[in-house]
């Protein structure tokens, strides 16, 4: 077998020839990827990858905690009004988003929130959570909608009562954490444990390989026949993505995100007179968060997992920055951007093609330039993005068996 670097342009030409013969049409074979493009392609794998254990969460990877987290994720009683669960906005049938531009809150008012509901597939591969990265762990991220007055608006006491009052939840809690649900006086501990169980569940939400991954693997092993199965328009789009478009600089790595924050010229007025500060506010929030990785609720005694939080830099350029989203399954998570203002992938591509550089901070990113794509190139880029859709997803909510107390 040949390695990725060994698959030459001639090898890729052979892919084109295979396509020609099978389709029996006279087409000019696509040029092979340049070595640098090939290297860029290989950076986006392998996939899929399990989420590493989180040292700040003592039940990360724990099967009992995953079962508890799964039960809580779909339980509307987590909200005091019993009408809002995590799955209300992270809908399984919508790739764990809600299809709205901006999320709706809970309670009677169901207010329109400021931002788009982020998808949760592969969320555990991130290092900052939320559009502004205001949470530095998956469990502190899970706490936010539970406590936020415009979302579930729950309290620690409410969550502790739910865990204590439901025999199945109490049993799963005891199995996961090795103790009974704490009493009222220690309700905050129960709340954080619930969030850690939710995080343990979220870590399991890893989607399967996509057509792109099949191409990547084929290129890695030098399998021209398998590589030829990848659609031509998507291959041209991939060349744009990893080449001229420079998309892969920020949409980097196996999860197609460098996990950081950039200003891409999106308007960030929430409403007249009110600005979404983006990452600037997120840094402020995570630093002040008593549930951050440097705080007392982290299970990482070394606090090493909090190094990123410790070293965070904040500057004026953080205004208007939002997290680089993963592009895996992006076809399924419309609408797009932090406030859902772009309805389709075509609109997203058009944004980068016609980028208004006047919207970017003067002291901001100099990487972004209008791509000036032709209509055909735009269609190719969209075709490529559609090949990032996983061919398989794990079952989100398998019927849990009855809980049996271990060691009771």
């Amino acid at each position, binding site marked *: 077998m040949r390695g990725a670097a060994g698959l030459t342009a001639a090898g890729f030409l052979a892919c084109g020839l295979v396509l020609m013969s099978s389709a029996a049409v006279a087409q000019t074979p696509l040029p092979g990827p340049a070595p640098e493009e090939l290297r860029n392609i290989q950076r986006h794998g392998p996939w899929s990858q399990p989420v590493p254990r989180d040292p700040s969460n003592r039940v990360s990877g724990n099967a009992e905690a995953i079962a508890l987290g799964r039960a809580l994720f779909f339980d509307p009683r987590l909200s005091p009004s019993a009408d809002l669960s995590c799955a209300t906005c992270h809908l399984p049938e919508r790739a764990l988003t809600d299809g709205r531009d901006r999320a709706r809150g809970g309670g009677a008012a169901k207010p329109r929130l400021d931002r788009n509901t982020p998808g949760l597939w592969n969320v555990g591969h991130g290092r900052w959570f939320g559009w502004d990265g205001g949470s530095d762990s998956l469990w502190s991220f899970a706490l936010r909608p539970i406590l936020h007055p415009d979302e579930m608006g729950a309290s620690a006491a409410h969550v502790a009562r739910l865990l204590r009052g439901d025999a199945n939840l109490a049993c799963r809690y005891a199995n996961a954490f090795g103790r009974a649900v704490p009493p009222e006086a220690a309700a905050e501990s129960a709340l954080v444990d619930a969030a850690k169980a939710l995080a343990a569940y979220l870590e399991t939400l890893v989607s399967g390989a996509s057509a792109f991954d099949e191409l990547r693997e084929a290129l890695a092993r030098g399998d021209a026949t398998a590589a030829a199965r990848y659609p031509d328009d998507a291959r041209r789009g991939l060349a744009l993505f990893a080449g001229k478009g420079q998309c892969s600089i920020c949409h980097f*790595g196996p999860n197609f995100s460098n996990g950081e924050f950039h200003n891409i010229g999106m308007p960030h007025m929430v409403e007249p007179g009110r600005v979404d500060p983006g990452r600037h506010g997120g840094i402020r929030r995570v630093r002040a968060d008593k549930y951050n990785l440097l705080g007392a609720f982290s299970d990482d005694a070394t606090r090493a997992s909090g190094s*990123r939080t410790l070293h*965070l830099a904040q500057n004026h350029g953080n205004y208007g920055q939002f997290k680089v989203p993963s592009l895996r399954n992006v076809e399924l998570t419309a609408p797009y951007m932090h406030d859902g203002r772009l309805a389709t992938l075509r609109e997203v591509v058009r944004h980068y093609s016609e980028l208004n550089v006047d919207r970017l901070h003067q002291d901001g990113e100099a*990487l972004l330039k209008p791509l000036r794509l032709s209509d055909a190139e735009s269609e190719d880029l969209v075709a490529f993005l559609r090949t990032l859709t996983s061919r398989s997803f794990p079952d989100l909510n398998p019927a849990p068996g009855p809980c049996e107390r271990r060691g009771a």
Partner: protein
Amino acid sequence: MTLKHCARAGCALAALLGASPGAYAACDAGPGVLRGSTSRVALAFRTDPPAIKVGELFSLEAEVCPEAGTSVTGLRVDAGMPAHKHGMNYRPRVSSTGPGKYTATGLMFHMPGQWQFTFDVETPAGRERIHVDYTAQ
């Protein structure tokens, strides 16, 4: 002055630039050592891990070698992508580990491409700035 370096094999350490070998002997290059200098100060450092991974925190150990008769009173470390006009999203912390020796933690290159380290060496005679280029893969 700058020193070009990339992490890939075959593109390792380039030649020393501008340093007078006698004064900077302790800062001479060795395996895995990156180096930069001005006419008055040389600096050698190793990163941990040796090949910097995009999106992962790394640290470095630096040794500053001033010309004879000069002392080093401090070191600041930063990095950025000149072509993109941005720095790091993280602020490293530098601590002294001995005369002329420093450790910097909390650095991260969050994008692939051309980065540039900036070392500000404080001496009684003023600040000496050293740039060292690095290609993050």
